[in-house]
């Protein structure tokens, strides 16, 4: 297995250098797009309206995607936007039938080329393959047929025009889903710290190899299935916000592994842990916030933009609104969001705007607090202090608790009594976890063994 690159120092020696639109290691891709080189660009996401996908309607599906992309790019031209990134996030069917995903990829790329020729519109295409391995339970993460199909999908999409490859990987999620609902910190830590690590190493070695073979960019991953699931359940009142906040920080070491294995960004939009990874590695990141309210509500609408290089709407169905279809509507909103950030550079005003984004949300929700620049920067340092992924994960969980408690004590944030109780419970649980992952393994194996196959994680 390819060795992981272990970061020894932060890409940004000073916190104040972190800013939207500028990454230490910018990228060039697609039709003339530069990412992280001084400008924030929109990353537009889109998906089908409710409809099934099968052989008999596949022509209709293709047409639908073409229509969506044509409208998005038209809107970009109308608004004088010079460059943007599109993300094709696979529906399961597009990965399960690698040819289908590849055809759609090629269709989209063709339209992008047309617009580049006709209007000079710069664009790049991110293809996010679906992690279909969890379509089998317990999932076979390395040896299953679905694993093979998934990698084939990566290959074909890379071949047919993807500029950037990404995934929202699910290694450990089979355990995390249950641990989350039970508020079991042992299960959560084991999932993120041990299973997640092992799967990320395996998965990203392969994605990076494929990327090299086809000369495309290995983008990045996200803890979406973990931290965003927690965020959504806390939004629905199912889980405490403090739990979601703690999991957010705990997910960062796991997502970092993609970069340690060779991913170079732009990291995936829905990974709110990205600022930490940018601080460590200097790669450009995509982020989403208020303008992804179409996909999910969040308590981090403005703060999430302070370090973004791409600014995304996460996902929106192709349904008609009064002015047109939702994907073009959100394209327009993203373009204006980006214009604001980019104009700030012209006024020498970018750092103030960054601070404003942070101030807007930071004390209204602990989930915003743990995303703030100060906390992200400290988290990044803590990750570098410790090479053991399980321990990094545990450490960041404890740090999240510390940060929230601190803010509480200083009267900076307010949370409900039941949230407070949970904060103390989480603190206690984390403090009681062993420093050695083999011990935690013993502690939880019985509880979770039906849910996962240890061989599939090399355990």
């Amino acid at each position, binding site marked *: 297995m390819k060795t992981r690159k272990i970061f020894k120092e932060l890409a940004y020696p000073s916190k104040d250098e972190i800013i939207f639109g500028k990454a230490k290691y910018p990228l060039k891709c697609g039709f003339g797009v530069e990412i992280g080189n001084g400008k924030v660009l929109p990353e537009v996401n889109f998906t089908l309206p*409710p409809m099934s*996908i099968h052989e008999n309607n596949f022509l209709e599906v293709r047409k639908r995607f073409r229509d969506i992309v044509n409208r998005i790019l038209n809107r970009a031209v109308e608004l004088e936007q010079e460059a943007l990134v599109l993300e094709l996030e696979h*529906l*399961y069917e597009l990965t399960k039938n690698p040819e289908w995903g590849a055809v759609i990829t090629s269709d989209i790329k063709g339209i992008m080329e047309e617009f580049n020729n006709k209007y000079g519109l710069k664009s790049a295409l991110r293809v996010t393959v679906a992690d279909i391995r969890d379509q089998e339970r317990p999932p076979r993460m390395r040896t299953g047929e679905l694993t093979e199909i998934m990698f084939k999908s990566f290959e074909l999409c890379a071949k047919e025009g993807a500029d950037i490859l990404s995934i929202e990987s699910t290694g450990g999620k089979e355990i995390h889903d249950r641990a989350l609902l039970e508020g079991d910190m042992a299960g959560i830590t084991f999932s993120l710290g041990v299973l997640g690590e092992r799967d990320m190493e395996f998965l990203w070695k392969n994605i990076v190899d494929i990327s090299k073979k086809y000369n495309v960019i290995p983008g990045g991953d996200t803890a979406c299935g973990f931290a965003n699931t927690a965020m959504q359940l806390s939004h629905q009142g199912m889980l405490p916000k403090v739990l979601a906040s703690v999991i957010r920080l705990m997910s960062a070491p796991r997502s970092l592994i993609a970069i340690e294995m060779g991913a170079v960004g732009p990291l995936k939009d829905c990974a709110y842990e990205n600022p930490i990874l940018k601080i460590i590695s200097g790669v450009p990141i995509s982020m989403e916030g208020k303008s992804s309210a179409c996909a999910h509500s969040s308590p981090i609408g403005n703060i999430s933009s302070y370090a973004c290089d791409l600014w995304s709407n996460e996902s929106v169905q192709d349904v008609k609104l009064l002015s047109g279809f939702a994907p073009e509507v959100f394209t327009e909103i993203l373009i204006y969001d980006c214009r604001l950030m980019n104009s700030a550079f012209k006024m020498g005003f970018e750092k103030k705007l960054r601070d404003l984004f942070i101030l807007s949300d930071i004390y209204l929700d602990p989930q915003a607090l743990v995303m703030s620049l100060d906390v992200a920067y400290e988290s990044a340092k803590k990750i570098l202090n410790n090479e053991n992924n399980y321990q990094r994960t545990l450490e960041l969980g404890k740090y999240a608790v510390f940060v929230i408690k601190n803010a509480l004590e200083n009267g900076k944030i307010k949370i409900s009594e*039941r949230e407070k109780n949970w904060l103390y419970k989480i603190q206690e649980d984390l403090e009681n976890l062993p420093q050695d992952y083999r011990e935690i393994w013993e502690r939880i194996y019985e509880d979770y063994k039906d849910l996962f196959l240890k061989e599939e994680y090399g355990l």
Partner: protein
Amino acid sequence: MELSEIASALIEGNRKRVQELVSLAIKEGVPPERIINEGLIAGMQVVGERFKNNEIFVPEVLISARAMHAGMDLLKPLLAKSPGILKGKIVIGTVKGDLHDIGKNLVAMMLEGAGYQVIDLGIDVDAEKFVESVKTYNPDILGMSALLTTTMPYMKVTIEALEREGLRDKVKVIVGGAPVTEEFAKEIGADGYAEDAGSAVELVNNLLGIKSA
């Protein structure tokens, strides 16, 4: 002993104590119906209320639900002789092609907590399996969940299969999941739609003509 002690132990999530108390009640000859209704279900109703009133979160509900299951396990052998004491029977599953289970599990948990018998068919359930389950369990309600816009249309396929088999009138069909809407539910001929796990209980109560607590 007072059956309310069982309820209290259950509310606290004390599984062991629930088991002890249920055993005791059985020994004392309390009819299982009463143990369930005045002990277990009464306790779960308090838990459900607390959740609804934003006093507790899902993990606490789950712990109590586990305690309830532990108590029920002791009562099950006796129950075979007096079926139908639960408020109603519900078969639930996530439709074919869709492997999301968190939402479906939450609904199942809420319904169990409200005193329903829930048979969970799991995820990726095809129409055939839904049809079979209606034949086998004769449930009052069939619940389908979908989280994907691409699998949601499969709900209609299932309803059509029920119609073909002449089973459509024997069971009320309810649907839910992020992309599902009330209009969609109407369009495919479902009997009900719940926006979230919490409102699923209310929906089922209404459909079965049972007053909410």
